[in-house]
């Protein structure tokens, strides 16, 4: 009698526990949630870090061939990132009243013509063939003209600049943070942000998403090293992938470093809510390892992840700046500054492959935002923010970003 009882009880308990595993604990099922992994578990909804791949991605962006030779090179991208850093620093000097910037100098920097760079990292930027201009949407004059017009405008505005305010071009002082002041147009547009963040979109983002991860650069030889005699131990495909990475960050150990500028910075800024920085950098490492292992399935999955996550990082950053404008609404300098950032990030979204926000949608959003940042209301900003969030699938996070 007793034996029967206890074994029966055992069965019941087992059944009961099993029932629980299937019902109340269901939402907490842990496992590998990455479809690209060997041990992908379609029932899992929380990733427990157990994913394993036939292809192992290294912790840093360091890749070597069988003989131990470094196969990674993105020196051209490194130069261009440094060019934009120097251009931004130069533009920001105009944030002091009376300090002017020269349109010809800006255009020389843009095209890398007759310009002597500081080149603190000794990359050989001065006189090199690398430039931002011919990589701006493939050198399309429709877009390079936009940037050169902004350069003309900021130069004119900075010449003999005084205090700015609604209807008056000049340097606007923050009323809440004495450390902040920006040169802005009579409508509150801040050219430095339009140019810097605009180039992040039209140059860096475009080249990653459309050019280097596109079929023209990916459906190429992946068997022979380009030119080992001259230190080029990489295949064409490996090299193109690295060039894409170099437009994201030049740090091999991202996000330990490389979070100080451009996409590396803003992806990291969206880390809390979108995990942009870790997702994008991990996909770059895994995709590169996949190429070296000649596994195109895994590579293509990483291309998809990088494109998707970069778009989310860009849209999330634009939304973040809309929220910043809303919370600093009464401070002209900070509001206009944030809106210039938001506008530029939003504008850049059209340059992604298979974008959710094409040029028509961008034009529509910009029309809703309007050109005069002194004439906006919080309700307008909220509406544009929410439209952008809806277009990019970020509605649930629109208030928190």
């Amino acid at each position, binding site marked *: 009698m007793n034996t029967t*009882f206890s074994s029966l*009880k055992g069965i*019941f*308990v087992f059944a*009961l*526990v099993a029932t*629980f595993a299937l019902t*109340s*604990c269901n939402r*907490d099922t842990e496992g590998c949630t990455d479809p690209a992994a060997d041990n992908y578990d379609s029932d899992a909804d929380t990733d427990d870090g157990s994913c394993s791949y036939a292809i192992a991605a290294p912790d840093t962006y360091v890749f070597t061939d069988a003989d131990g030779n470094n196969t990674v090179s993105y020196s051209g991208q490194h130069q261009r990132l440094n060019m934009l850093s120097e251009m931004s620093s130069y533009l*920001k000097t105009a944030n002091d009243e009376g300090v002017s910037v020269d349109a010809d100098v800006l255009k020389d920097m843009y095209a890398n013509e007759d310009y002597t760079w500081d080149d603190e990292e000794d990359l050989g930027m001065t006189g090199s063939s690398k430039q931002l201009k011919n990589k701006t949407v493939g050198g399309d004059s429709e877009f390079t003209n936009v940037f050169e017009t902004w350069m003309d405008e900021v130069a004119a505005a900075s010449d003999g600049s005084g205090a700015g305010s*609604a209807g008056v071009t000049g340097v606007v002082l923050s009323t809440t943070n004495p450390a902040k002041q920006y040169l802005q147009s009579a409508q509150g547009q801040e050219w430095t942000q339009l140019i810097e963040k605009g180039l992040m979109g039209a140059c860096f983002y475009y080249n990653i998403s459309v050019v280097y991860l596109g079929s023209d650069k990916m459906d190429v030889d992946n068997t022979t090293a380009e030119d080992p005699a001259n230190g080029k131990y990489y295949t064409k495909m490996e090299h193109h992938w690295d060039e894409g990475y170099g437009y994201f960050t030049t740090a091999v150990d991202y996000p330990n470093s490389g979070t100080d500028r451009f996409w590396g*910075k803003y992806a990291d*800024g969206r880390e*809390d*809510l979108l995990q942009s920085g870790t997702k994008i950098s991990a996909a770059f490492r895994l995709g590169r390892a996949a190429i070296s292992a000649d596994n195109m399935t895994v590579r293509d999955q990483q291309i998809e992840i990088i494109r998707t996550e970069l778009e989310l990082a860009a849209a999330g950053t634009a939304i973040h700046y809309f929220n*910043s404008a*809303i*919370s*600093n*609404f*009464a401070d*002209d300098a900070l*509001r206009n500054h944030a809106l210039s950032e938001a506008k530029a990030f939003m504008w850049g979204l059209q340059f992604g492959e298979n974008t959710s926000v094409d040029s028509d949608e961008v034009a529509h959003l910009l029309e809703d935002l309007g050109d005069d940042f*002194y*004439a*906006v*209301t*919080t*309700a307008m900003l*909220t509406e544009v923010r929410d439209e952008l969030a809806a277009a990019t699938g970020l509605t*649930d*996070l629109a*208030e*928190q970003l």
Partner: protein
Amino acid sequence: MGRSILKENIGMNWGSFMGLQFFLLFMVLVLAGCNPDEQDEPGDSFDREAFLINAADNLIIPAYSEAVVSAENLCIALWDGTLEQSRAALKECAMKWQAVALFDFGPAVGRNLLGTTNSHPCDSLDVDEDVMNGNVVPGLPSTLDRTGLPALDYLLHKGEWNADRLQHATFLANHLHDELQAVHDSWVTEYRDDFVSRTDTDIGSGLGMMLNAFNRTYEGNVRKGKLGLPAGVFSFSGNPAPQLAEAYHAGDWSVDLLQEAMLATERIYLGGEGIGLDDYLQSLGDVSYGTELDAEIKAQIAAAQAAVLTLDDPLSEYVVSNQPAALDVYSELQALVILLKVDMMSALGVLVTYQDTDGD
């Protein structure tokens, strides 16, 4: 119901005794077995959904309802009443606003309710201009300081009361009412359910949004706006700035507004009659960040309220003639910032998100 069935089962044959055992086992699994991770989080036994429901239904929505009614009464007084009645209605509306101001998140942020309702001091020259021209567009950055309660305070208390002023005051009161109504309606029709469903403690959680708004507005609008600024805490010279007192033109109810704001602060902390932040802290146990912190916060709220009672209207004169005393009161308000923003937020594991440290 469940309990009475259990009682009947006890004392019956072992088959039903087994049923009881399974029932107990069931309970153990429900309470403990499911997700071991959650056991590590502080205050996990606390029912955050009940907390949010109480906040929404017993604090937030009623505060908006009362503010809407008070704005309606202001409009009615302006239409039909005397100037004295309008002034009394304005004071009542400003008093009701105090609770609403502390809930500056969700639909209120989307309409910049805080900015359009109470950006003080108002620019009285611009308001005079608007009386003449009558074409002010509320909600623009440039018009924040010429709408809402501060502009009405000026219109109803300074200068010659005439038909043009009445017309403009009516326009501003209507706008104020419509904005309050719109935010109230958003809460009732959709936001309330969304809010109470966000039961975690992350950035976008109900708790995260509510407590960030609470701390931000207590720190910026109560402590600083109502006393710190006029008392000269934030002025470069350290001299008092009497014209920055809230309801400066009425003169005799600036301190009333501060008292009301402190009562609203206390109500939020206690959750009114329901589940409040005090219960949450107590649920963390008999530790320095639990019951002890709760007691400290309650004591400091009481100390701050008592200190505020020592102030006299007109506050704009008091901060000049009794600046050291005003600064003492300010330090009591400041002490509460530390307890609420630093200690309470970290005890509850809620991130303070309103200090934007964004780079360039």
